[in-house]
């Protein structure tokens, strides 16, 4: 569905090359998070061989799919040079909509979900046109999402349509459905952002909005597109989460706000804008989601689990800073 956005650019032919810096260097910023994720899988499989079976993998990964989608949503906002503090309650609102309105009023439910994506795009427009700080706007909107969700469903409950539950539970032969979903989503987003003209424009609008404007693109529209895509991924995250939970709870995803930001940053992104990596973000989401599981498999006492999670994150970021420094040294050394 993200592909449809690609039809947006006009016939004007600019030179959208603003993101060259991104692909410079021998290894992409996605490399470290991917290595970290692979190491985590290897350790988990070594400690708990049952985790590598078909059932084990689907149990391990299924609960991570909504987080992966939320991290990708956050990635598009961070690509715009902004931060989204509302994604958690937004996903909660989607969950509540799916669990209460969709089963009885299917059409209204679908329209509402589409409306939520539009609302996200409009939020992007507001931020771009009025030059408002995204932290404040998205924080304010997070209370709107949560308030709406509580209005629809004051106490947790509701039932998610059977179709969504079984769709999310999809178990193809050989490879768990979750892995297929993660791969497909990653490939689609990575292709769109890295290989299409409009993807380059979108990244460029975060890192160099002036350049994009001079090239004849509307910065307001690119920001709307970025937020719209974020909203779409947020809705997908909420639908998958609903299918897994089978019921609604306005507060189901409040932890996603910080987890998704951490996922993008661990995944090689930076707050500079434009500097994000879809593959890295997905790996970052897996790392963030798997740390707690890993500690659980290693039988770390519960009192140390929370603190250790934070330490592992900091360790990864320190490693990343080290790698960046090393790469820069090699680059400058090469020049000299």
């Amino acid at each position, binding site marked *: 569905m993200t592909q449809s956005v690609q039809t947006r650019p006009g016939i004007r032919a600019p030179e959208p090359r603003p993101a060259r810096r991104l692909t410079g260097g021998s290894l992409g910023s996605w490399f470290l998070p991917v290595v970290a994720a692979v190491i985590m899988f290897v350790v988990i499989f070594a400690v708990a061989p049952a985790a590598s079976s078909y059932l084990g993998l689907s149990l*391990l990964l299924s609960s991570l799919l909504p987080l992966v989608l939320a991290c990708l949503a956050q990635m598009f906002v961070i690509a715009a040079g902004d931060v989204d503090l509302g994604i958690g309650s937004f996903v909660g609102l989607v969950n509540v909509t799916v669990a209460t309105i969709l089963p009885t009023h299917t059409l209204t439910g679908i329209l509402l979900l589409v409306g939520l994506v539009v609302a996200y795009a409009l939020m992007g427009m507001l931020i771009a046109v009025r030059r408002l700080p995204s932290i404040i706007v998205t924080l304010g909107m997070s209370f709107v999402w949560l308030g709406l969700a509580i209005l629809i469903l004051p106490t*947790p409950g509701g039932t998610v349509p059977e179709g969504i539950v079984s769709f999310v539970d999809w178990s193809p032969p050989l490879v768990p459905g979750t892995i297929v979903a993660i791969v497909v989503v990653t490939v689609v987003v990575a292709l769109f952002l890295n290989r299409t003209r409009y993807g380059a424009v979108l990244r460029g609008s975060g890192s160099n909005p002036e350049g994009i404007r001079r090239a004849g693109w509307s910065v307001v529209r690119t920001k709307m597109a970025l937020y719209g895509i974020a909203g779409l991924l947020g809705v997908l995250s909420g639908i998958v989460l609903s299918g897994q939970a089978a019921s609604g709870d306005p507060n189901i995803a409040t932890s996603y706000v910080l987890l998704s930001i951490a996922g993008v940053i661990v995944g090689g992104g930076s707050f500079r804008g434009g500097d994000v990596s879809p593959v890295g973000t997905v790996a970052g989401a897996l790392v963030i989601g798997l740390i707690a599981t890993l500690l659980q498999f290693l039988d770390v006492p519960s009192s140390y689990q929370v603190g250790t999670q934070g330490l592992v994150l900091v360790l990864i970021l320190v490693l990343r800073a080290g790698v960046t420094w090393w790469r820069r040294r090699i680059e400058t050394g090469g020049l000299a």
Partner: protein
Amino acid sequence: MNVRSARRRPALLAAGLAALTCLAAACGAGPSTEPGAAPSIGLSTYYTGNNWRKEMVSSFQSGATGAQKAGIIGKYSVADSNGSVPQQAAQIQSMIIQGYKAILVEAASPTALNGSIQKACDAGITVVAFDSLVTADCAYKVATDYVKYGELETEYVAQRLGGKGNILMVRGIPGNSVDNDVYAGVQNVLKKYPDMKLVSEVYGQFTESVAQQQVAGVLPSLPKIDAVLTEGNDGGGAMQAFRQGGVHPLPLVVMGNTGQDLQIWQKVAQQVPDYTTMSVSSYPSMSTVAMWVAVNVLAGTPVPKLVYAPVLTIPEQNRDAWASHLGYGEVANKVLSREDSQRFIDASASGNPLHVDSPLPEAAQ
């Protein structure tokens, strides 16, 4: 599609994932659980940051250590999801992978874990939710009847005041199910006593310091208060607000089982010799009751789907024993034994559950 760079990110990713799945297929082994071995039990909680929860976890650990020594259960562990619902769902699913025979759940959401819990049940695992429950039908439940909690304290206050007086209520957290239930119980009893008036309500968030601030904040606007109803971990704070406000005579404050509550109660009783009250809160050792429910279910002994754990009350005569036993920040608890748990299970099965337990601290017995 205009392609500029010759990056091969997707290709690399695909290769990496393919390698992963191969690895998975190669070492894919079933859950390693020997038949006949003592069952392993995992406890999944979403928060361990307050005294009640710490007491809850440590009573599970001491109960489980004993059961393990006796060869009744095998491995046990505790996992904390740090307040996150999806994280707790992941935690439960990891416990399925780890091959636990029973999972005890203190749930972050009454509904959002149902999918994971259903997966556990489908895998033949016994799931016991306790304290903050889940709606999944396949899970056994160990609950405190918080409506009874509210009725109990209000009934006590009504007796003491002779069915007449002004009441201030320190409630928990808005929208919280414990708060809703206790409040419903309070209302049930107040209906019977038209001369008892609930003149004000504040939210103390089950936290002594917050309760103290909130009560102090409304104090100047209140008429003479005869009694204060509470919901646990808040009575001492409420009493402090009255003492610092120079209120005389002090109202009857229902205490909430923390060391702080009991010490303040003692202090007030030294100054005002005829001051008496009671203290009540839920049993942190519900976790051990949940464990014994799981053991029974695994052994094939019939257990009702809903088992009530009583509230722990501290009447006047037990006050000093508990006050000297508890540290300032501790919560009254007794590690409930298998026999205790069996009593609760049997009482719940007979349809006449036990709602009140007034033990002495273990050292004093």
